[in-house]
């Protein structure tokens, strides 16, 4: 199993490449979801206030 992680001695390049790629992707995904949640809650709050008038 450890041979797999060693990546024939190139572990220092293969794993960071995948790690950084999925860090970038995770960043995009989390940002998108967070921004969507914020927009939804803000809209709900404003609509509630509008309806409450």
């Amino acid at each position: 199993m450890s041979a797999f992680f060693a990546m024939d001695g190139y572990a220092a390049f293969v794993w960071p490449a995948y790690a950084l790629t999925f860090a970038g992707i995770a960043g995009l995904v989390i940002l998108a979801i967070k921004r969507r949640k914020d927009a939804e809650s803000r809209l709900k709050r404003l609509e509630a206030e509008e309806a409450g008038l």
Partner: protein
Amino acid sequence: MFSYFANPERFERLARVVTPWAWGGAAVLFAIGLPWALVISPPDYQQSETVRIMYVHVPSAWLAMAAYAGLGVSSFIYFIWRHNLADLAARALAPAGAVFAALCLVTGALWGRPMWGAWWVWDARLTSMLVLLLLYLGYMALRAAIEDEKLAARAGSILAMAGLINLPIIKFSVDWWNTLHQPASVIRFDGPTIHASKLWPLSVMALAFTALLTALVFSTMRTLILERRAAVLERKREQRLEAEASEGFAE
């Protein structure tokens, strides 16, 4: 066809269907692609295991270019027909495209180091990608610098179209600049020259990245629509409070 999707309700119905499928598709494709790329596909006789970096490096490059093409086309649609949705698409595509371009450069460096002994190689493709990243940064900086939303959208669309028109010329001039000195770069990864055992995992990973970008763009566009509706309500609220304030003063 474009005006069909122009009105938000029809887009919202479409997005509500596409977005979950896109997220799901991306997850499934990554679930298949990753083990295939990391374990199942054979190492390269020359590059040994480092060839696995190709499975994230190449899709990033393709998606960075595809996203910029999308940015250019949606800017053209916004500039000519003034469909707000096209502008929303552009605003959703730019950051994702920039991230993919940056990822392509980073993974390119990580791939080049073991093979050529240098973190950065002024290879024609990598250099073009660097210029593409600059185009993205220029677009995002321009939009951020303009407060008025309509002006930012129009100025952004003009710059994105200029970028798209110039992209082939830039690519040509970088290739021209590069071929005079270095032999064609070692990475031969475009098209059929690579073995089927590598072509399949690469295609799956490329599809996974594409599904991911689709999900990101649709989701961001829906968020931007919500933010716009919230902004309208907020402005109405401000006008109401201002009216109440002045009434209080008038009595």
